[in-house]
């Protein structure tokens, strides 16, 4: 017994080393579970407030660019408003892009306080949280297009996957033909993603628009994702290899909107009902 204690005492450094490394690996392998733990990521109140205060200083240097992008957004909205108000040409059913007048969706404006593009798994931290109604699994969009999805929230901050995260991809479709597939990011270039699972018989052209499919409750249908940059038919496969240039410039996003789907609860209840019904039979 005594020799055991002496052994432990003599090798305490090695044992501590093993313990800490195993603990780290447990964290690495259970990223999903711990990502949801709110105090171990950058939506943590203390961590996020560090980012927030740093960001509130740095943002002064970006004011020119911010103003320009806000002015562009204004112009875009104005022209759309004119279009819908200009009379008989366009009637009721026009709703394109981010700003649909769908009452089932509510938009919460937020400022990006931390964001990265150079990792394999990129995250985005926002300055709105539970207090402002932000919940996990809400979509994040900018005026140019899709940005990401909220994964965890604290009292007044939120953390989300950005599209540039290989652990998550939105469901997308070709706007023209309606064929849909998942979006994937391979970790290389922050401007490009890939659209998967589009079969060879679908016709497409460079420059075609890719939008969200609306098949999940995260995003409404028709939010801009990007345009086709190039596509090819790899030999021995049955799906296209499509490069999509993202509409959102992830290096300059300052303000975003979080989308609250008011029907989500109902949809979920309905889905659960069907699932439970199926398992009962």
């Amino acid at each position, binding site marked *: 017994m005594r020799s055991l204690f002496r052994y432990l005492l003599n090798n305490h450094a090695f044992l501590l080393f093993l313990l*800490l490394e195993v603990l*780290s690996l*447990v964290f690495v392998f259970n990223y999903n579970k711990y990502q949801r733990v709110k105090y*171990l990521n950058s939506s943590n109140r203390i961590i996020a407030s560090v980012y927030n205060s740093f960001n509130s200083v740095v943002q002064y240097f970006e004011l020119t660019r911010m103003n320009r992008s806000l002015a562009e957004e204004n112009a875009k909205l104005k022209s759309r408003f004119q279009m819908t108000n200009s009379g008989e040409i366009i009637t009721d059913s026009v709703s394109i892009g981010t700003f649909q007048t769908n009452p089932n969706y509510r938009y919460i404006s937020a400022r990006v306080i931390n964001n990265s593009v150079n*990792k394999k798994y990129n995250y985005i931290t926002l300055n709105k949280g539970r207090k402002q109604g932000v919940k996990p699994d809400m979509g994040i969009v900018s005026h140019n297009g899709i940005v990401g999805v909220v994964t965890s929230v604290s009292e007044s901050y939120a953390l989300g996957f950005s599209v540039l995260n290989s652990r998550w991809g939105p469901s997308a479709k070709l706007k023209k033909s309606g064929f849909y597939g998942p979006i994937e990011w391979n970790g290389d270039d922050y401007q490009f993603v890939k659209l998967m699972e589009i079969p060879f018989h679908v016709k497409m052209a460079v420059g075609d628009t890719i939008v969200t499919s609306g098949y999940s409750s995260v995003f409404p249908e028709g939010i801009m994702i990007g345009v086709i940059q190039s596509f090819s038919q790899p030999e021995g496969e049955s799906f296209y290899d499509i490069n999509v240039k993202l509409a959102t410039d992830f290096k300059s996003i300052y303000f975003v909107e979080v989308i609250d789907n008011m029907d989500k609860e109902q949809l979920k209840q309905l889905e659960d009902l069907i699932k439970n019904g199926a398992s009962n039979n």
Partner: protein
Amino acid sequence: MVRQTIKYILMFVGLVLVQVLILNHVQFSGFVNPYIYVLFVCLLPLSSPRYVVLLLAFLLGITVDIFSNSLGVHSFATVFVAYLRPFVIRVISNREEDRSDYPGLKQNNWRWFLGYITIMVVIHHTVLFYLEVFTFSNFFETLYRVFLSAIFSIFVIVISQFIVFRE
């Protein structure tokens, strides 16, 4: 003693802030991510107990992890390099000369310091980058990233020795 402790606390906070607020956003062609916070582990007094070094390394790693949403990756690499530190020092200090307890640039000759920092940073970056991508499939691409980033990190660390940690 108290002054030393305060100095190390300030160094810890300073390095973490510089890392997460500035260097995490540095990006040249998507390859170079300098990680200089490991300097804290390098500069701990050589006489400090090993369990203290290991625990501080874990605390440092997990702090950077929480800031950059990569739980476990940085703490693994930092604890790893902290455990190897005594061996690294033994290997590069071949002669029994009077070694200062503080392994900074001023207290040692620059060749010793550069060798020490280079080995520590390269080990740290290698472990970190391979654990981050978690595959050996793009082995050489990752290796390229390791070396580019390591060179940049070493450069920043040496510069910082002239500007900040002068005493």
